[in-house]
């Protein structure tokens, strides 16, 4: 795949039938030594015919580098399936998927789920440079139109994915109902949230938080509510209440 980017497939016949885009797995790193935690990965794709689940990741840390060196036949300790999933479009005429970098991961499965859905599918893919670009061809095969952008202009249009998105929203027919799906780094989520609110477009976001467990026990992955609940609740949990949230309900602070 792209530089330092890896796709790992593992056999999980039951999960391959039931996995929904947005859900995640929590994987113990091979030779983890003093690395205590599992690492969460969004389900990238699920192939029910072959009984496999895919994850997409960048080998940037000690754990993910060890994971990238896995060989066919190696055993992995995987906890799953965890979390909720994207709600599919109903009466909308178009879906727009916005991905920053490896935020593209869950959209491969989402487009698989939507393969019989007749509406228009557009994916805004933003990467740092052409070296990082991945998944674009497969997303096209799955029926999406791709708008590629990169920070340095070496792939697609130069600039932020949010800019490309906004240009598109300005030009499109605002009477058509659209649903936005978003995944990527926090600064991007913050900008897309502002854009979605400005254009009154319903959006679902999947977040990526530090977590020690993945199933609601450590309470270490809070996501801040835009409006505290009447009972004083200020946070939801990324693992248990998410990782998919309505974008307008949550905020992204530093």
């Amino acid at each position: 795949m792209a530089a330092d980017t890896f796709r790992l497939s593992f056999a999980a016949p039951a999960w391959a039938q039931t996995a929904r885009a947005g859900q995640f797995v929590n994987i113990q790193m091979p030779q983890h030594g003093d690395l205590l935690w599992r690492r969460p990965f969004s389900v990238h794709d699920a192939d029910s015919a072959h009984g496999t689940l895919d994850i997409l990741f960048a080998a940037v840390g000690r754990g993910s580098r060890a994971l990238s060196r896995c060989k066919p036949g190696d055993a992995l300790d995987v906890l799953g399936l965890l979390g909720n999933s994207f709600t599919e479009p109903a009466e909308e005429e178009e879906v727009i998927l916005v991905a920053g970098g490896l935020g593209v991961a869950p959209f491969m499965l989402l487009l698989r789920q939507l393969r019989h859905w007749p509406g228009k599918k557009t994916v805004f893919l933003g990467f740092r440079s052409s070296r990082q670009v991945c998944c674009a061809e497969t997303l096209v095969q799955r029926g999406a139109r791709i708008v590629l952008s990169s920070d340095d202009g070496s792939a697609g249009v130069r600039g932020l994915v949010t800019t490309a998105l906004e240009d598109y929203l300005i030009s499109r027919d605002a009477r058509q109902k659209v649903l936005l799906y978003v995944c990527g780094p926090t600064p991007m989520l913050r900008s897309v949230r502002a854009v979605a609110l400005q254009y009154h477009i319903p959006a679902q976001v999947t977040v990526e938080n530090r977590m020690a467990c993945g199933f609601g026990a450590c309470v270490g992955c809070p996501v801040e509510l835009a409006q505290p609940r009447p009972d004083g609740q200020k946070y939801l949990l990324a693992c248990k209440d998410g990782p998919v949230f309505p974008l307008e309900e949550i905020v992204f602070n530093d």
Partner: protein
Amino acid sequence: MIDLSTQIASLRLQNPVLTASGTFGYAEEFADFYDLNRLGGVVTKTVTIEPRPGNAPPRICETPAGMLNSIGLPNVGVEQFIAEKWPFLSRLVNAVIINVAGKTPDDFVRAVERLDALDGIAAFELNYSCPNVKEGGLSFSSNPRVAEQVTAMVRKVTRRPLITKLTPNVTSISEIGRACEAAGADAVSAINTLVGMAIDIHSRKPRLASITGGLSGPAIRPVALAKVFELARVLRIPVIGIGGIQSAADALEFILAGAAALQIGTANFMNPGAALEVVEGLEHYCAGQKIARLMDLRGAVKLK
């Protein structure tokens, strides 16, 4: 038949393996993983008289063989706990221990008084020692007179076994332990987390929003073992050992050092089956070593 049972004051546990508060939710979170009744018991996440939203993120970070946390005791408060969490817990047949905290001594008293009305609570664990709650928190556990006063006040409102959870972030943990014992505590549990800190050298920011947090996991096990050993020597009441226990072998170290029971904490996060594996490992060990009664090993460390 191997006897794994142990006694904490009037409370008999079928085996010494409990779960540490704040690492096991309200038990329901783990119900899909195994039959919770196989454990000696569960200790709930902390309950406070009023609801608490918890601390701002980031709340956790990974450290070598451990983790820092500053969760801030988020919980729904006593009344919602009774309405929403207790129905599941009350159906467990093993020991259900409710962990209670408060900002003031009166908070502890009110929470325990209210919860004491429930049928089926095996014991209370008083959390004097959460390092992540700015108000009070530490003073209950770092000042022997305050610890003694709060314990005595709570003692008056319940006849159920009282366990006081001790912090290692003090000059003398046994001094605090003695104060709790004198005030009528039935057992102590030790240790809570050690105050720690980590900094991201790229952003130059602390890795936790609260700057410091509590260190847990295997990294603290030797410290915990030394504290449990110390407490077991000076106290008459039982000591429940906590700190980085991941396996039956780790648990046996604590029993040999004098622990009457154990709590599995951080290990539950990475390995949701950890506590059950410790129970099974202890069984296996006793069978292999022809030990009829596990608690015969309690305090059996050979010092000479």
